């Protein structure tokens, strides 16, 4: 057996120790490869190059992240093997030999995980492309292809990465004394202490950070961003290193809690494990927060854009001619829309209304509709019809999407009286808020008899508008109709479904890439935890063997493990969820737009993933520990 064989056998015959490291490396490779797989898809060559640039940049970010992730995985992995190295050194292995061994191991694991990662990526390639197709809204189908470029780039980048990381071994293994290595897993540690000052500081910093984030509004959000992030980050760090330990110690000192059945075993370890894992928790919490906020922002921005457009355009298609002087063009274009709808076999109802734009006060122009026109349009979209008496006006306020800072439009409109021909005036009777007619300044609805008496002098212009409501259209129909309508100048016609489609097509890549990277961050954060938890499994086994001999029921064992894992798995995620929730609330203050649904969806989704992770980890953990019983 020469040295290379020894290193080789060490890996192949000791799979359990290596499997976690191998799997996380493989997973990283797979993610990177899947990303390249569609970044290099031939379809993107023909569409626009900005998409590809974006994808490749993101690929670079993923690569850098992978580097640190694998480095971290490796160092945890090596830490757990200190004793083995100590034994080898005692048998006379030199430092260089041990480094050589780890180097060979790393190359072996690196090569295999790269190959397996690529293979798995290829296996899932079609699924990934299908998902991408739907999210990205690409006209062409993303067919399956053999991604030579992606394979080669992944292969080279990761083999290089593993070689470079292997060189870092020297740093990880800079241990002083042999004894320390051999006894590394036996030396008992002093019970971690928490400073009261820093614990209070942690709570205070978090409270201040949250307080600022939740109270600032509008543009101030941007100004507060960096200080809040710094405050919260420091707060989070001390939360995990100090406050959490402090809380556990506080609970431990309460005899009626600590001495209650299995609590004694749970809590006795908790302060140690919390302190040991504090940095990991901090990192996981921060990474997850970034993932939550990034995805939440992208997602929120998406609904902010589309919802706003949908709200001010309740009609399937609307056409407006802003002046009466070109009736032929209008007739021609409206006929064109009708005929397009007819030729496509799309059922549609339409209404034509008149709108008078009245100059109320030196350039403050407000649209005025007559009651019958308003009601025709209202019926079209299923809004209630209204009744306006002679001499009265009803104010239709701005729609929610248009509300900005400052007084509402209705408040201004209430102050005006509309002059009619011959000394009559109309007084505002009440305010409604519907989507029937959208205008920044709000609008008036008046009685038909009054409408004809509007003086020509105060009228800025009149306009005719035609609204269509169509049946539900398929995506292909939307595109076909939308493209047909591009014949008409866009300021006269708008088709809401097509507009939304265009927004989504433009926005799709950003959303997709954002989701992808966010998910990677989050999943790798989960793996960090998984890793940490499983490096301690041997020590745990020892402990449980001991306690089982004294008499520990299986249910009690499961209970302890479940509680312990739950605390380890969820404490950073709950912190991240709260951080993320606060961040998204601040964001919604910035946009002045309600993001509750989006936030709940994003945060809820992540919670579900984490729950799955927890269930899996718990299952394997209990299986491992039970094996010794």
């Amino acid at each position, binding site marked *: 057996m020469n040295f290379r064989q020894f290193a080789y056998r060490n890996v192949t015959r000791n799979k359990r120790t290596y499997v976690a490291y191998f799997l996380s490396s493989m997973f990283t490779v797979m993610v990177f490869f899947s990303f390249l797989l569609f970044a290099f898809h031939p379809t993107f060559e023909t569409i626009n190059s900005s998409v590809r640039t974006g994808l490749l940049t993101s690929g670079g970010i993923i690569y850098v992240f992978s580097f640190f992730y694998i480095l971290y995985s490796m160092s945890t992995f090596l830490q757990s093997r200190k004793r083995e190295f100590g034994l080898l050194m005692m048998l006379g292995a030199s430092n260089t030999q041990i480094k050589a061994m780890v180097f060979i191991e790393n190359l072996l694991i690196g090569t295999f995980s790269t190959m397996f990662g690529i293979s798995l990526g290829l296996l899932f390639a079609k699924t990934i492309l299908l998902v991408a197709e739907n999210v990205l809204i690409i006209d062409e189908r993303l067919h399956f292809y053999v991604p030579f470029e992606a394979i080669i780039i992944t292969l080279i980048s990761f083999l290089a990465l593993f070689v470079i990381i292997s060189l870092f071994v020297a740093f990880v293994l800079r241990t002083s004394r042999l004894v320390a290595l051999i006894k590394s897993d036996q030396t*008992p540690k002093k*019970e971690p202490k928490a400073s009261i000052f820093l614990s209070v500081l942690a709570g205070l910093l978090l409270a201040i950070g949250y307080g600022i984030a939740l109270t600032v509004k509008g543009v101030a959000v941007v100004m507060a961003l960096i200080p809040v992030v710094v405050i919260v980050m420091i707060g989070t760090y001390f939360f995990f290193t100090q406050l959490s330990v402090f809380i556990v110690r506080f609970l431990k000192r309460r005899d009626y809690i600590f001495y*209650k059945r299995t*609590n*004694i075993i749970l809590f006795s370890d908790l302060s140690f494990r919390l302190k040991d894992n504090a940095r990991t928790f901090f990192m996981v919490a921060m990474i997850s927060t970034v993932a939550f906020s990034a995805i939440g922002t992208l997602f929120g921005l998406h609904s902010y854009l589309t919802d706003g457009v949908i709200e001010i355009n309740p009609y399937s298609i609307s056409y407006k001619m802003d002046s009466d002087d070109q009736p032929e063009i209008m007739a021609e274009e409206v006929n064109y829309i009708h005929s397009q709808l007819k030729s496509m076999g799309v059922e549609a109802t339409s209404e034509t209304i008149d709108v008078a734009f009245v100059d109320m006060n030196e350039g403050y122009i407000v649209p005025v509709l007559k009651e019958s026109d308003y009601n025709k349009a209202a019926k079209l979209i299923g809004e209630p019809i209204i009744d306006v008496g002679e001499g009265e006006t009803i104010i239709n306020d701005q729609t929610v999407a248009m509300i900005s800072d400052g007084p509402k439009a209705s408040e201004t409109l209430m102050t005006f009286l509309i002059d009619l021909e011959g000394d009559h005036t109309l007084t505002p009777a009440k305010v409604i808020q519907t989507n029937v007619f959208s205008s920044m300044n709000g609008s008036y609805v008046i009685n038909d008899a009054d409408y004809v008496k509007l003086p020509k002098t105060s009228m800025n212009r009149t306009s005719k508008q035609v609204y269509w409501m169509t049946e539900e259209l398929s995506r292909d129909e939307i595109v076909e109709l939308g493209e047909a309508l591009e014949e008409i100048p866009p300021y006269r016609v708008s088709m809401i479904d097509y507009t939304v489609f265009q927004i989504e097509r433009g926005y799709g890549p950003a959303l997709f890439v954002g989701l992808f990277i966010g998910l990677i961050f989050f999943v790798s954060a989960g793996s960090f935890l998984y890793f940490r938890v499983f490096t301690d499994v041997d020590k745990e086994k020892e402990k449980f063997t001991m306690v089982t*001999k*004294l008499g520990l029921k299986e249910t009690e064992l499961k209970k302890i493990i479940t509680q312990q894992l739950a605390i380890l798995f969820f404490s950073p995620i709950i912190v991240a969820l709260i951080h993320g929730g606060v961040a998204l609330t601040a964001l919604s203050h910035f946009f002045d737009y309600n993001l509750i649904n989006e936030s709940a969806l994003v945060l809820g989704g992540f919670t579900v993933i984490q729950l799955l992770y927890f269930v899996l980890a718990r299952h394997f953990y209990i299986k491992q520990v039970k094996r010794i019983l």
Partner: protein
Amino acid sequence: MLKVNKVSKVYEGKVSYRALSDIDLTVEKGEFVAIMGPSGSGKTTLLNLISTNDTPTTGKIMLNDQQPHTLSKNQLATFRRTELGFVFQDFNLLHTLTVEENMVLPLTLEGIKVKVMKEKARQIAEKLGIDSIMSKRVYEISGGQAQRVAIARAMIHQPSLLLADEPTGNLDSKASKDVMHLLTKLNKEEKTSLLMVTHDAQAASYSDRVIFIRDGQLESEIHRGDNRQTFFQKIIDMLSLMGGETSELSSIRLS
């Protein structure tokens, strides 16, 4: 109290190995029995069977008219923490707990009131002379102290049978003597039956009766007379009779 009836243990495998065959053994209430024998004789297997860590291939083990091997896993756990006490060679204390916390662990698992627990811990600690180190962590105390803590833990719930696996194996001669004195004292005062596996003739000489096992079978047994010194000599003679040199069997300490 404890009845071991025609117990055999066979380890199945490519080559089946008979670790114990037809062992009969009875321990009366309040009796102190030591089991001796060369390495590989089956001492530890026997102890594992009695401690319910392992199940016999054939035969029956009865403890207080209960047959622990027929109990379910959960019942077994309860059985262990009420009926049995364990003392191990390597103490098996939890590093993350203090001395007192280690001691009350069986009571805590049972859900006893804190006040009762603390009182019991105080009493037994006084008896064992460890009341001054109650709040120390396990790594701060010496081996002899650690073993006394382990004994306290094993005795705190007043088990009917205390099982000791090489309790002096990791201790120096002074500490060994102290621990054995304590064990005999507890045995006499609390009327707890005590079954001890040991290599150490000195430790065995504290018992009422020594049983010798070789190759999985009962070899012989000798009872203690009035004098511990002569008992010790008899044990040494027996060991050398069983084969090998005496020095190989134990590091003999003469007191």
